[in-house]
């Protein structure tokens, strides 16, 4: 039975040695009233104990460096190790965010170059690197929209999102003080144009869209959609989580989007860290530039860079300092490593791999029980429905996912997007080999065969993991969210 670090060690043990007090000791520097009576009960362990505890904990994780991780919508592509090396260079990693810009020219040039590169990929002229993640970028984008309309004396109240939207989109809408209006999805998996026409009016501030969307479908009506949205004076927002499908192939700006967020931790390969850090830069059209978060990076006539914090129309700051620079270093290294061709090649291969996997599953007959939700081909990911499997084999998508764990694979995203019954959202990414895709397809088919014989195997899976199915209901009913002493 696993122990927490608080259950290990012994009084007096420690890893840390405090540097010696090298100044005359003075009493009473802190009024007693401000003093803490009892110190926090932090662990008391030696360095060897600390290392062993966390090394052994790490072994209870599945990770991308160890196996296939087709978590749809998350773009789990390989994280090149060079990026960790360059991000760790002291000139980057020990640079203080308030250092005089004149003494941080390398960092500002890197950010400038990254902004230019992202602008080119988005097809939009201006970029802010500040947002901390995708949803933070969404919030920035909707607040920019609000600032834009306010600046023109308008107060709009609604934001549209399709029912395929990721949860962060509606959550963002509420946080930004708008009313959410949902749009339907048409038979092709795109936006229901009539529904859009019906709901698009002067009260609408923005339409948030993902393209390709979370079904892995590229909306071929995108130009018409943009036209409708712009006609009513709303902005068209691009959720860039799926950008990995179209880098160098199709640009949001050219599709008619006004605001785009990037998930650097997806398309531009940040290690996902078990749930972050990420980075969510935004690119915007000319007319939105005045409202960008401050500061913005500017280049002087002499080529030197500076931070401009005096931006009267800016929405202000979303967070401290200039954003997740450590992520910028990695994504910049990625862009420079791949170059123009490499980025396009990455997207092409991502789409190729997704379609190959889909085709393999078709060949193996797996699609009979797990039909493709929409369309025939897909972009970088695709959605299967587990409904027939549930009906015919008595195992749910959840069971399939858990059984995949015993095959050594991370399951796809499950039960999302919501409009697909028993959904499985599969995104292989471009950094996987054909052998891996074949093995994964084979595993899925095998699980279906196995379920036909005996559904209870999958229903009780997994068997080979550090723990088996966990009681999430109990956890929520009586929350134990910290160590009790």
């Amino acid at each position, binding site marked *: 039975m*696993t122990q927490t670090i608080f259950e290990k060690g012994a009084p007096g*043990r420690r890893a*840390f040695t405090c540097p010696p007090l090298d100044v005359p000791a003075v009493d009473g520097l802190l009024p007693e009233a401000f003093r*803490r009576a009892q110190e926090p009960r932090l662990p008391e362990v030696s360095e060897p104990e600390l290392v062993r505890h966390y090394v052994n904990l790490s072994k209870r994780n599945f990770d991308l460096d160890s196996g296939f991780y087709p978590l749809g919508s998350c773009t789990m592509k390989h994280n090149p190790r060079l990026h960790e090396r360059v991000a760790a260079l002291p000139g980057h990693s020990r640079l*203080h965010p308030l250092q005089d810009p004149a003494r941080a020219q390398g960092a500002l040039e890197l950010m400038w170059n990254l902004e230019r590169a992202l602008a080119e990929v988005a097809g939009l002229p201006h970029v802010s690197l500040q947002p901390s993640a995708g949803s933070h970028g969404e*919030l920035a984008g909707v607040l920019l929209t609000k600032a834009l309309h306010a600046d023109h004396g308008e107060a709009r109240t609604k934001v549209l999102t399709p029912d395929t939207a990721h949860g962060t989109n509606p959550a963002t809408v509420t946080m930004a*003080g708008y009313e959410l209006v949902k749009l339907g999805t048409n038979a092709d998996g795109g936006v229901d144009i009539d529904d859009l026409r019906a709901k698009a009016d002067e009260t609408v501030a923005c339409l948030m869209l993902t393209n390709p969307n979370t079904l892995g479908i590229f909306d071929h009506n995108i130009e018409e959609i943009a036209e409708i949205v712009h006609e009513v004076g709303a902005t068209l927002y691009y959720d860039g989580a799926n950008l990995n499908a179209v880098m160098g192939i199709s640009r949001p700006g050219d599709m008619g989007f006004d605001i785009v967020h990037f998930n650097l931790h997806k398309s531009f390969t940040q290690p996902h860290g078990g749930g972050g850090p990420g980075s969510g830069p935004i690119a915007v059209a000319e007319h939105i530039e005045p409202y960008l978060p401050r500061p913005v990076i500017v280049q002087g006539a002499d080529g030197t860079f500076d931070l401009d914090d005096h931006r009267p129309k800016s929405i202000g700051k979303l967070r401290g300092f200039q954003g997740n620079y450590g992520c910028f270093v990695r994504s910049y290294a990625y862009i420079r490593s791949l170059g123009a061709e490499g980025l396009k090649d990455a997207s092409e291969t991502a789409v190729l791999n997704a379609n190959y996997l889909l085709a393999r599953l078709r060949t193996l007959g797996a699609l009979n029980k797990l039909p493709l939700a929409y369309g025939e081909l897909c972009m970088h990911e695709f959605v299967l429905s587990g409904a027939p499997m549930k009906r015919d084999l008595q195992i749910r998508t959840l069971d399939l996912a858990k059984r995949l764990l015993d095959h050594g694979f991370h399951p796809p995203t499950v039960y999302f997007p919501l409009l697909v019954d028993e959904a499985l959202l599969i995104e292989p990414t471009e950094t996987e080999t054909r052998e891996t895709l074949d093995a994964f397809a084979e595993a899925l088919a095998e699980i279906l065969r196995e379920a036909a014989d005996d559904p209870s195997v999958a229903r009780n899976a997994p068997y080979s993991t550090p*723990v088996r199915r966990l009681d999430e209901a109990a956890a929520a009913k009586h929350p134990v969210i*910290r160590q009790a002493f």
Partner: protein
Amino acid sequence: MLSEIGVRSLDELFDRQIPAAVRLQRPLDLPAGMAEQDVYEHLRALAARNTSAEDEISFLGAGMYDHYVPAVVDMLMERSEFLTPYTPYQPEISQGGLQVMFEYQTAISELTALPVSNASVYEGPSAVAAAAYLAKLANGKPKVVVSRGVHPHARAALRTLAAGYGHEVVEVGLRDGVTDAAAWAGAIDQDTGAVIFQQPNFLGAVEDAAALAAAAKDSPAVVVGSYDPIPLGILKPPGEVGVDVAVGEGQSLGNRLDFGGPSFGYFAATDAYLRRMPGRIAGETHDVDGKRGFVLTLQTREQHIRREKATSNICTAQALNALAGVVYLTWLGRHGLVELGELLLQRTHYAREALTAVDGVEALHEQPVVREFALRLDAPVDRVIARCQDAGINPGFAIGREYDEYPDGLLVALTERRSKEHIDRLADILGAAVAAERHSAGVSA
């Protein structure tokens, strides 16, 4: 692979899915790819054009601090098993990350003396704004009162976010270096949904947190404290002075400066707000065999379940940085955090004495300080800083960059990496710089 798919070419895959009109008909206008060694050299050349804390003796703080990051932190963060997975949606194969979250939550709860902590938010300033949003959802009141002792970036983030969901932001000024008690009390009323102060405040002064919290007692306001975690080994914790929600910047806990990020924000609260917390929360449970295990819990707060009704839109947070945080706190240990706090307390006092003894330098305030303090210079602050940096020492932050009311202010921060020798060197160089500036001013006058 194409034949398996049943297309003739890659292009066909795209032609059949993307309208020609929105296809990019030219290559991206980006440089060609490079070999690994060349990318390394390029990034190294850029790094070489930054003056980092490795290149100068830096007393720059103001929200992020050059603490020593122990080697075990790097080693564990670089473990593939922690570095490369995503959010633990599949708990059976994510027990490592989930238990780390649970341990992190425990450490933060101990630090703040508050029972509830989430698994991290983005960083400090946005955490302050997130706390105000929690208050808005909790009591719907239209107003938030914030001390000007709160980090300028946090106040900016608050205003930016409030412009969206709709909070009127009222700022209360400082007096003698701490929040003006009368103005604070005066600003709080029945429309006040949240009050926010920072401990120690931006000027390094220790606030009378208990008094600030007490002033809000008869209002509906959620009391929010933004705390620097490092002094919490010696400073009365928020949970013991009436704070409802404690947030803060976690960078100083085992995270690198990284020119401002990524780091993490911590977010702790009283039980009352458990179901209104933003972000991930790990909880303990057991598996079908009765084995102890951990899961993401109370997810009905979150965007992927509640969508527009979620308590926040946050999804990807800062798990890896929070790991660094709990590993760092474990490395320090129960007594180490206290010893570190005492060391900083003593050195900060010594530094304040040494610097205020310098000609043309005086204390901006006389309040108790624990790791950072504010000075007034009788010379142009930016020019003094430049002179010091040319001499290899960064004396701190020009407060005037953010506070019109302190044009002559210099904020000096310490970490355990700044020794007495460094402090004495700073006193000499700062003295010389101030003297030189006054002299040239005298000359030009």
